[in-house]
């Protein structure tokens, strides 16, 4: 029995609260109305997310290469192949580095920007507009902005570095940092916005009291601000980590995974296997693994958040 239904039973026996007071005998019709209201959305979700996720599991057990008319059940062979596939492990490593560095940068910068904005007296709306612009642009546009900034001869980045001619996206050592920078630029405003909203909710009396007690600025930050931001930072970490593992557009457009696979993430490897070499089974297997990683991360973070909330 669901929690909602047990509440309904209680309000039937004690008819003082809840809407059921007016229709005491109408629980079944209410359930019916509820199902009727949920049904269209549910059908849609079943067709567009549940069914595809089950289908992709099945696909990942097939060897399916449509161009050659090949389709046969191969069990876990695709996964066994990936386990010893150097390209897969390289993609996993790139995804890990991309996620760790990009999310780390965003969190640090995001907190700093949030602090600056929260102390802003005039022009907050303008400052927020300028900040959120980077976050709201289509990621393909962001990729094009940075491709142009990184241009070896006409790029603003090399110009500002004093007329260098670094080949940002063509150099195996620079391409991943270049992609990470573009992604961090795009997503840091989200972290900053969450922290900024939390900072605004802190009553100024807390700071005043601490200052009376002789706390310095650093102490105010580490003893008051950071602990208050802890919860919201965990949430930002959750959303940003999941997004970074799922990231696709920025590297697909900016580098296409190159040079020499140095920016090829798991999502990019999956896409190219699916739609460029048309190996649907193998591509589906990589997709399933990405799904597993994302769900495991989400579950882990939500557990951590719940632990976080308990003492509060």
């Amino acid at each position: 029995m669901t929690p909602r239904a047990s509440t309904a039973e209680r309000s039937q026996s004690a008819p003082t609260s809840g809407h059921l007071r007016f229709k005491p005998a109408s629980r079944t019709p209410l359930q019916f109305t509820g199902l009727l209201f949920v049904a269209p959305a549910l059908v849609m979700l079943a067709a567009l997310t549940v069914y595809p996720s089950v289908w992709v599991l099945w696909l990942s057990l097939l060897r399916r290469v449509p161009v050659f008319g090949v389709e046969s059940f191969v069990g876990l062979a695709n996964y066994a192949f990936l386990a010893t596939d150097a390209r897969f492990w390289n993609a996993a490593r790139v995804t890990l580095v991309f996620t760790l560095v990009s999310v780390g940068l965003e969190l640090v910068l995001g907190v700093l920007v949030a602090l600056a904005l929260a102390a802003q007296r005039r022009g907050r709306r303008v400052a927020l507009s300028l900040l959120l612009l980077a976050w709201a642009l289509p990621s393909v546009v962001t990729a094009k902005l940075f491709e142009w900034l990184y241009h070896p001869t006409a790029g603003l980045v090399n110009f500002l570095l004093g007329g260098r001619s670094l080949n940002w996206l063509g150099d195996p050592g620079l391409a991943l940092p270049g992609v990470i920078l573009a992604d961090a630029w795009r997503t840091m405003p989200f972290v900053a916005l969450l922290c900024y909203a939390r900072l605004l909710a802190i009553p100024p009396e807390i700071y005043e009291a601490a200052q009376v007690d002789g706390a310095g600025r650093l102490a105010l930050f580490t003893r008051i601000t950071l602990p208050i931001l802890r919860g919201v930072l965990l949430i930002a970490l959750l959303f940003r980590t999941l997004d970074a593992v799922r990231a696709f557009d920025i590297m697909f457009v900016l580098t296409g995974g190159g040079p020499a696979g140095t920016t090829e993430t798991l999502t990019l490897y999956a896409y190219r296997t699916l739609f460029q070499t048309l190996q649907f089974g193998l591509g589906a297997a990589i997709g399933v693994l990405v799904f597993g990683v994302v769900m495991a991360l989400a579950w882990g973070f939500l557990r951590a958040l719940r632990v976080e909330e308990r003492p509060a």
Partner: protein
Amino acid sequence: MSARGRLRDAVVLILMTLYAGPFFWQVVTSFKPESELLVLPPLLPSSPTLAHYVAVFEKSLVPRALVNSLGVAGLTVLLAVALGLFAAYALARLPIPGRGALLLLIAASTAFPQITTVSPLYLLLRTLGLRDTWAGLVLANTSFALPLIIWLLAGFIREIPEELEEAAFLDGASRVQVLRWVILPLTAPALASAALLTFLMSWNEFLFAYTLSASEASRTVPVAIALFPGVFEVPWGDIAAASILASLPPIAIVVGLQRYLIRGVLAGALRE
């Protein structure tokens, strides 16, 4: 206000302007004559030109792609809001069997990686004959828009005092009437936030659109920009102009409807 405070505010504003610099640089580029594109310095064009915008409108597929993007994003919002509002109300208020499991499924599907579902979605929509159509893209986008809308709206509806509905029921109103005349007006701001976020996500969406579109019949702006034709040299000026056009709706939302956007983002992230 103290002089120091004013100086501080000015510094923050300058820093934020610099942060948006990559975009402004693209604006500058879009007005540069072809001959000055590949030379630095000068930073600014000697005589700003609209040539790239003219080229984008007359020779590229971007105008058609803008129409496609607008149509797909608009229809996605309509579909997701229409289905989502009823579902959210039911999940927030009515005794649905298996409600906990449903909410869990909806929350989890907001985290589904697109790369995982893109191949079966492609096969499904191809079988239905919806490849390279608006309808196919709208359905694909609904797969991520609908869970988000339900999640946001259910949270908002739960905050509306039940007494307001009870008063309407006493007057003999039906569920649908209550939804229309009590809940809808009260959730209008939340609905606006959810719709804005959905529009923005659909407008910016790339992976589904790139995979499911095959011609100008359904190519959206991000796809058109990613596939911008350049045979011998990359047309940086035209790409810049197309990028600016693609950015206009997001900018309008960030500048003009900022309050709704921020409310939606915060509710989506912070609501349990």
